[in-house]
């Protein structure tokens, strides 16, 4: 009820957004209402998670497909995702209250923002294929318009184009996938699909299409191409939603099909998903390290985290198919936990990127620096976010990665040799990705917030409205809380995964509350709470020791820097120079990264120049190839437009004769 009210409120808000015109307070009002509506949805989701019966009642509305009107239903899974989604949406809306005044054209954002929220929530509660796809496309459509908010910039238009194409591709995959699940009679209701039997071939195709369709929206390599273009193009609070939340909706679709509608996916697909996830994670973070644009970097890191989640999902599928229910539950919990965490810290990071852009007008790392002193709040919150996404204890990012590792380490217990050998490899990929993520965010944070300002804009970063700062602070606190009370979260998740894996996930009882020990107490355990407490006390102790034994005197002076005394901020390390070792080590063969140095002759006063060239093979070969093919064919076909009437008649004549021949032949038989 609450949920329905909130959704309809969002729709009406869109209309208000259209009417808002140029009055800034009206836009603010819309954002406030959005925040309230999504808060209501959040509450609704939490309430449902709290109550025990798994699935809520089906609501059937008299629209949608004529003979089988629209079905909606809220079960534990969708309730969980409703929580995930709306934490993000509340944050983004509150952020938007202050942020919308800094947008070039708020009129092109405000009307579509509520629609976007509506679309994402509607996907979660849809209970038949048609409504699911309608909401799904609705979501894409709204976000496409939001990507076009700053439509005068040709890059944004190109990004929007690619985005909508990939969205359509994904939709067609899901369309055909549901077509298979529904069968020729068209049982498009999810309940009917669950019941429908599947032949091996259809079962294979269903999974393939689901992975393609949902994967393209979630950003699995090589379908990720649109993501780093589209997410940064949108206004930052929308980018936060697209990266932090919309990708989760895509994964919701994946889980819904693979774990619920299909239900009996073979372990081979699990292995394939793990591999794809691993590749996605590594490639994503490598791309991210090479980026100089703050938001593009964040978008690529989203790709990486999606890969990590997918590793968890694939592992869970493999376990489930091999009958290891408890481990399947563990892996799934790990995946879901990482989704929750990522949605929080990625939202936080994108919002802080928005804050930086608002304060400085710069999004290029090479022009930032020293922001921590100008914007202490944002700086601190971002530091927490960066540490969390780098999977550092005691923050939330580490817990989920710990869980994924724990389940990975149980992978070799699977009977299949492919898994026995594949799991360590995927584990190595995951570890590599995690480590690279840390260096990626040390780079980003160190360059943007630490050191000395690299441009006048960065030096003159101005003050931000309170709503923006508070949003980030709250999200940062969430990161810490979710990291320190992991057991509470996993208990909440157990109710969600029970219908999907068939077992009730619980941490082993013999250690008790703060100890997260998934399999058994001797199997390895972790406690964010204890670690946090001990760490803090040791921190205090070390302070006491140091101050007890020594002085507390501090003298401010110029930087020592081996006596080099460079005052120009250009002498600092830049993003590219920081990335150089990684680039040389990993990207030389992968992205054909090349560096060319132009040294001037001795006596020549012109500056030396270092140019870096990186080729993205996926763009160049996969997408570029498709584009060239279409162009070539279009050129050929286009000739038909310029023939003489006689030739057109000839075509008609040929068609007629051909068909007559067909009839003649078929009549003879």
């Amino acid at each position, binding site marked *: 009820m609450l949920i329905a009210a909130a959704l309809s409120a969002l729709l009406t808000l869109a209309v208000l957004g259209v009417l808002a015109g140029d009055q800034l307070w009206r836009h603010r009002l819309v954002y406030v209402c959005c925040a309230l509506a999504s808060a209501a949805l959040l509450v609704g989701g939490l309430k449902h998670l709290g109550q025990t019966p798994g699935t809520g009642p089906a609501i059937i509305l008299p629209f949608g497909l004529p003979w089988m009107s629209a079905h909606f239903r809220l079960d534990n899974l969708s309730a969980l995702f409703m929580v995930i989604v709306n934490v993000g949406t509340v944050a983004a809306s509150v952020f938007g209250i202050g942020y919308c005044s800094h947008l070039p054209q708020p009129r092109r954002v405000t009307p579509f923002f509520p629609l976007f929220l509506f679309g994402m929530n509607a996907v979660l509660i849809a209970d038949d294929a048609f409504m699911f796809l309608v909401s799904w496309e609705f979501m894409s459509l709204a976000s496409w318009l939001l990507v076009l908010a700053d439509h005068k910039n040709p890059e944004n238009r190109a990004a929007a184009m690619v985005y909508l194409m990939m969205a359509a591709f994904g939709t067609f995959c899901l369309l055909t996938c549901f077509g298979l699940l529904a069968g020729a009679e068209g049982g498009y209701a999810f309940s009917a699909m669950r019941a429908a039997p599947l032949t091996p071939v259809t079962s294979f195709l269903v999974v393939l299409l689901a992975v393609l369709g949902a994967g393209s929206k979630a950003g699995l390599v090589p379908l990720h191409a649109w993501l780093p273009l589209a997410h940064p193009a949108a206004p930052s609070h929308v980018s936060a939603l697209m990266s932090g939340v919309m990708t989760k909706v895509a994964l919701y679709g994946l889980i819904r099909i693979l774990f619920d509608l299909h239900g009996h996916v073979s372990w081979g697909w699990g292995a394939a998903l793990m591999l794809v996830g691993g590749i996605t994670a590594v490639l994503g973070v490598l791309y991210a390290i090479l980026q100089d644009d703050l938001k593009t970097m964040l978008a690529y890191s989203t790709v990486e985290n999606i890969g990590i989640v997918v590793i968890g999902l694939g592992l869970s599928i493999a376990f489930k198919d091999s009958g290891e229910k408890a481990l399947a539950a563990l892996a799934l919990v790990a995946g879901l936990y990482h989704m929750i965490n990522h949605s929080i810290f990625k939202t936080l990071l994108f919002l802080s990127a928005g804050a930086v852009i608002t304060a400085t007008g710069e999004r290029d790392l090479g022009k930032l620096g020293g922001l921590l002193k100008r914007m202490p709040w944002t700086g601190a919150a971002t530091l927490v976010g960066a540490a969390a996404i780098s999977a550092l204890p005691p923050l939330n990012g580490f817990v989920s990665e710990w869980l994924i590792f724990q389940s990975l380490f149980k992978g070799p217990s699977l009977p299949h040799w492919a898994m026995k050998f594949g799991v*360590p490899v995927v584990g190595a990929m995951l570890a590599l990705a995690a480590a690279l993520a840390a260096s990626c965010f040390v780079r980003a944070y160190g360059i943007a917030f*630490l050191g000395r300002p690299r441009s006048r804009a960065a030096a003159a970063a101005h003050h931000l409205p309170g709503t923006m700062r508070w949003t980030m602070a709250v999200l940062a606190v969430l990161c810490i809380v979710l990291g320190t009370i992991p057991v509470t979260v996993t208990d909440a998740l157990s109710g969600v995964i029970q219908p999907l894996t068939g077992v009730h996930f619980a941490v082993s009882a013999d250690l008790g509350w703060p100890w997260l020990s998934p399999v058994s107490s001797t199997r390895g355990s972790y406690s964010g709470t204890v670690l946090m407490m001990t760490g803090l006390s040791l921190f205090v102790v070390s302070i006491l020791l140091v101050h007890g034994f020594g002085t507390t005197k501090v003298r401010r002076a110029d*930087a*020592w820097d081996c006596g080099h005394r460079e005052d120009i901020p250009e002498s600092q390390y830049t993003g590219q120079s920081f990335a150089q070792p990684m680039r040389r080590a990993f990207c030389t063969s992968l992205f054909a990264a090349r560096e060319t140095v132009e040294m001037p002759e001795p006596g020549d006063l012109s500056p030396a120049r270092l140019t870096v060239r990186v080729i993205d093979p996926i763009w160049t070969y996969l997408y570029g190839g498709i584009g060239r093919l279409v162009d070539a064919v279009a050129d050929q076909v286009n000739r038909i437009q310029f023939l003489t009437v006689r030739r057109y008649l000839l075509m008609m004549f040929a068609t007629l004769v051909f068909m007559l021949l067909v009839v003649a032949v078929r009549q003879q038989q």
Partner: protein
Amino acid sequence: MSAVLAQIVQIFLVVALAPLITGWVRKVKSRLQGRIGASPLQPYRDIYRLLQKEAVVAHSASWVFRAAPYVTFSAVWLAAAVIPTFTTNLLLAPAADLIALVALLGLARFWTALAGMDVGTAFGGMGASREMMIASLAEPAMLMVSFSLSLISGTTSPTQIIAFILGGGVGIEVSMGLALAALIMVAIAENGRIPIDNPATHLELTMVHEAMVLEYSGRHLALMEGAAMVRLTLFMALIGGIFAPWGMAVPSPEMSGANVLAEMVGLAAFLAKCFVLATALAVFETMIAKMRVFRYADFLGGALLLGLLATIFLYVSEAV
């Protein structure tokens, strides 16, 4: 001795012991290089002296620069606190397993690198970038090691692993050997020893760790140095504990009385291991030369592959 007491002893033991080990390594090295060298106790004096000095902080530094030493030190300290040195009966043992251990070291590194970049000098950035690059291969390698260990012993918690090995769960195995090799390479990288990094270097374009802490002075520098020493001790405890766990006290119900005795034995064994390993390290460092910066990748990639091989070989030994 109860778990609480053992834990407290352990916490202060590692801190107290760390400078001595470092000092011993330096002493042996200088002897091998034909110098008399400072006494093994010199590091204690150094640290004390640094604590007395006032801390000089660059104008461009932010609070991150001043907080980093404390965070780094306490993170490493925490990590060292959960690695069994003389007994496996530790209160905090369940709080962190090998994975958490890696992550705690990562936390320390994260802050050190940020501190390196905070002042905004070329050297700081250089050090941070190289350090992160090294870590990006060392961490996976170490995780692979813990992967193979957990496959062998069925657990990721160091105390459990040690208990398992002491219980005779594992004989001499190829994968154990590979894992040991990988772990040693990681340890070299993590502690910035030759051939990856030279702890005694200054004003060189090859320095990594030193470049990050270049701006530190006074108590901050003391903390950073201390963190490095504790980290070295930590790795010795890890290697010695897992691959040569003999003498380690394992709590068992029937021998509660003789427990203290067992722990004394464990302590002695630990000291012995540390000095053996320290001497070995010194010899090793004297024998080989430092490698070029961009060869790190090959070295650590090798470590990663060794870790991977360690897991793969398990199946082979299972299969036969």
